């Protein structure tokens, strides 16, 4: 035992040094001093994905506007569910933000019994990027308009394959909505992610494809795009009609934003909201987004919350109907 005595002493010494250092970063109690220390910006997807790139685009301007360091941390898994489950369990001190994707945060708790979080717990700060979802068919396909495609889906129910990314995802719900509104029936063939589904389409393994606007822009010369899910004409694809223009009352989009834990102080949210909206309204960033095939958005906290609730009502109605039919 004697031999261990010095060891214990030295250890205690070392520990006290480390602890001393760790407490240096203690924050002040005054809320108006927010932010005073490094903010963690969590991306619930893998590095290199669109959500990740978007966060990294905002990182430097955020640091300038907030005056503190912003660290990006990827916490991928479960299509974002792991990151959001973590978010809703964090302290609402404003130093932990997580990227938020719609409709993911709406559909996951609806589709899974134990997603780890509820939609209402994800506390939105802002929405800054929209990705309208479009429907495309092969260039040599016999269908030239959305109407023809829908008619074929009615005449040959389940015989036309439509590729897309994921189950209970933005693409899946878009197809469910389309089937619900028109009565046509298609065979959905989901892939793990947008890139594999585009690949499957380009290889001719599916008849049609639901794809994000950036993929549509990138591969537009290899597809006939029948419709797009934006509210108005989508600037980078001016010739493509929206679903609404073609008398199908639906929009379809994947929207990216950022959220904080539930019960975060209003003043904190306002401060973050201001910074994110300023970046979202930056002309250069807007131009970059359009060039890449995205729809720049600038929706604040309240507006985002309303939008989420609106979409939640819509989607739960569709899912309930589909689940009732399959039983």
């Amino acid at each position, binding site marked *: 035992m004697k031999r261990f005595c*010095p*060891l214990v002493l*030295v250890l205690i010494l*070392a*520990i006290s040094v*480390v602890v001393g250092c*760790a407490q240096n970063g203690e924050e002040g109690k005054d809320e108006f001093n927010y932010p005073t220390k490094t903010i963690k910006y969590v991306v619930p997807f893998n590095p290199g994905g669109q959500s990740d790139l978007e966060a990294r685009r905002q990182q430097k301007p955020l640091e300038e506007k907030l005056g503190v360091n912003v660290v*990006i*941390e990827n916490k991928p898994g479960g299509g974002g569910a792991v990151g959001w489950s973590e978010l809703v369990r964090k302290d609402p001190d404003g130093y932990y933000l997580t990227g938020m994707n719609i409709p993911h945060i709406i559909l996951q708790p609806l589709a899974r019994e134990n997603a780890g979080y509820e939609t209402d717990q994800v506390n939105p700060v802002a929405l800054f990027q929209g990705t309208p979802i479009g429907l495309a068919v092969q260039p040599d396909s016999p269908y030239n308009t959305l109407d023809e495609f829908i008619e074929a889906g009615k005449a040959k129910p389940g015989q036309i394959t439509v590729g897309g990314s994921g189950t209970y995802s933005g693409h899946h719900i878009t197809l469910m909505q389309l089937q619900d509104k028109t009565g046509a029936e298609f065979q959905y063939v989901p892939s793990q992610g947008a890139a594999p589904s585009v690949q499957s389409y380009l290889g001719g393994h599916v008849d049609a494809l639901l794809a994000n606007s950036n993929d549509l822009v990138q591969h537009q010369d290899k597809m006939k795009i029948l419709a797009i899910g934006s509210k108005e004409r989508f600037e980078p694809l001016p010739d493509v009609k929206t679903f609404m223009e073609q008398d199908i009352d639906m929009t379809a989009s994947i929207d990216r934003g950022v959220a904080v834990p539930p019960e975060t102080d209003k003043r904190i949210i306002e401060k973050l909201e201001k910074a994110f909206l300023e970046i979202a309204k930056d002309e250069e960033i807007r131009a970059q987004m359009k060039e890449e095939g995205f729809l720049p958005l600038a929706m604040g906290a309240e507006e985002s919350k309303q939008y989420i609730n609106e979409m939640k009502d819509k989607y739960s109605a569709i899912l309930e109907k589909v689940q009732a039919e399959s039983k």
Partner: protein
Amino acid sequence: MLNKDIISAAIILIISGIFWSEGSGLSEMGGFFPRIIIIVLALFSGIQLIQSLIKKNIEPAFAGVEAKRLIPMIIGVIAYVGAIILIGFALASLLFLAVFFKLLDNTKKVSPVKSVVIASLITAVFYGVFNYAFLVPLPVGIVFGG
């Protein structure tokens, strides 16, 4: 006579059973592939079970292992992870490294001071590199506000 092959085959059979019951509620689409795997796995481990019941002379699994050295390490590793959750990465690593540098030393040449100094250095270097160069913020632990 129980030997490692009988035991391992039996355990895998039990695991197959547990997974089968856990997956019993899965739909046709989500349950098809896992069910095939479980059936195949159970089949192979069943064959192994029968084979190992017939065959004799299977070497014992842990021949020559010194439990005196192994068990502290296993406990230490588990305690290390628990400590990270509680007191954070830096402190837990410092403790783990210092204790085991000393504990595993056969030559008795390593002084406690030396082991702590080296452990602190290693922890500090990696903590710094990961936090500042790789931008991986390491956990700080519940005690110090996770």
